[in-house]
């Protein structure tokens, strides 16, 4: 069996975010990047299938600039078998649908039985690419998946609904599952894994190599006009001063609320 895991490298969750000069994205120089948190759960879910069935091949796929090599090395160190890196300025500048088209072209070459992705990314929070990719691949899909189980040529998944409820869905293979955070406990790359990863192949491609055209910024159907810190209009009154002063202010307010 082959499992394709799509992952994105995103700014570290604790990175300081400054808006770039033209106000359309963040300043990416001099910040740390990491694998999108949702995608680490997707990779772990795939590696667990491989743990149970040694014949499984796990292929990680990412679209992004040179820095993405680091994320792919980490994924290989965790146990993925090989990587595909679409490193192409045009592809990188695509909107969600453009990214899905590039990934669909990779999937066409790879022919996976299962595609695992994260539910969304920590940068754009779009949660758009996974169902789009499934539509373009013409396979069934489920999002917000907390549990997967293989059975008789199908993948049975539990999707998260509201208030802790889940929906159980059976997806005949090939299919796509967009994994929710907390689905599993994500492993770390071991030292041995990191050493082995150095010998594992990373196949670098362009959109052109994949036969994809019309993506990139020119083909984008959605463009970001500007990003900015949210308006601070009715934000909190801030208590300042020493810890004692702050605490006495808080106690005063709690008394006012009749809770003390």
């Amino acid at each position, binding site marked *: 069996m082959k499992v394709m895991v799509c992952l994105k490298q995103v700014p570290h969750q604790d990175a300081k975010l400054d808006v770039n000069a033209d106000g359309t994205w963040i300043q990416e120089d001099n910040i740390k990047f990491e694998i999108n948190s949702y995608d680490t759960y997707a990779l772990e879910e795939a590696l667990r299938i491989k743990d149970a069935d040694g014949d499984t091949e796990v292929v990680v796929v990412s679209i992004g600039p040179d820095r993405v090599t680091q994320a792919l090395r980490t994924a290989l160190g965790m146990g993925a078998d090989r990587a595909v890196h679409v490193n192409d300025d045009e592809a990188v500048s695509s909107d969600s649908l453009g990214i899905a088209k590039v990934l669909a072209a990779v999937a066409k070459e790879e022919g996976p039985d299962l595609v695992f992705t994260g539910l969304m990314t920590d940068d754009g929070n779009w949660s758009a690419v996974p169902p789009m990719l499934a539509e373009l691949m013409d396979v069934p899909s489920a999002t917000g998946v907390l549990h997967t189980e293989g059975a008789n040529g199908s993948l049975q998944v539990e999707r998260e609904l509201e208030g802790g409820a889940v929906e159980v869905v059976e997806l005949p293979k090939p299919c796509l599952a967009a994994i929710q955070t907390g689905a599993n406990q994500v492993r770390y790359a071991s030292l041995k894994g990191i050493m082995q990863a150095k010998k594992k192949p990373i196949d670098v491609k362009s959109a052109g190599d994949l036969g994809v055209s019309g993506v990139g910024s020119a083909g984008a159907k959605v463009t970001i006009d500007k990003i900015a810190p949210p308006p601070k209009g009715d934000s909190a009154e801030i208590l300042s001063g020493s810890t004692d002063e702050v605490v006495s202010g808080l106690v005063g307010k709690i008394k006012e609320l009749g*809770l003390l």
Partner: protein
Amino acid sequence: MGTILIVAETQNGAIRETSYELVTLAQQIGGTVKSVVIGSGVGDLASEFAGKGGGETFVADDAGLSNYNVEGWNKAIRAAVDAAGADLVLISNTPLGWDVAPRVAAGLDAAFVSDCFDAKDEGGKVVCHRRVFNGKLDAQLTCNADKTVLTVQPGAKEPFSGSGDGSTSALSVDLSGVRAKFVETKQAESTGIDLTKADVVVSGGRGVGDPEKFPEVIQPLAEALGGAMGASRPVVDAGWLPHAHQVGSSGQVVTPKLYIACGISGAIQHLVGMKASNYIIAINKDADAPIFEVADLGVVADLFEVVPALTDAVKAAKG
């Protein structure tokens, strides 16, 4: 904006309130409003929605649609888009909406924006607003395609409560070739922790940094105030606290007299679960954390300095 198609959602035998929020947004954008209601035995609900702002409403009523199925809903929505001649499709950003909407958009080769909280028509183009980077930044986006699909953040607009001219017509959907199969829905297991009944909820987030700090720092303040301890999603995902403590769209939605958020940055899915609290205090060392937008009172400081001191002061005040 030509024609706007609202995908109304049913839940527990009624139209969800979020669908009426879509009516408000559609009227704000301006255009001919049409709707689709999907399910089995949903004719009456469709008539009701049609007369309450849904307008000309298509009813995809089929035994094969008695439970949500991503492929069935995709086919029904696509059929409704064709029947309505829709230029813009509005879907609530619920577990149903985020599952199916991007598939609809990809199939239509349309522009797609998720989780918008506002949208308008600017010279025939849809311009919308949403948050990025887990609520830390606001983005304005423009859609450049013949068709546009948006998912809309629940609660972003007031639900439409008026009435209007409406009609219903049956929409047949070819469900052959549907592969995904609904098995069952499982409700959350009862855990005995009901945060919704507490007068005070003290919650900790990723900023607490360590599972041992919850019993040491967060729980004592909750106990001193006679309240309960909550947590944000990353805390539960990391296995630091059980899911029963989770506040947010996928956990419990709480409205206590006082909510104290400690080391919680304020991702949207957490805010949904606590922003209707009567009074909110936020303690976070990042002055730009989105939690301060919904808080009434904020402290920009290290929670490990403020929270234990506050616990002592509360105990002292109680004598």
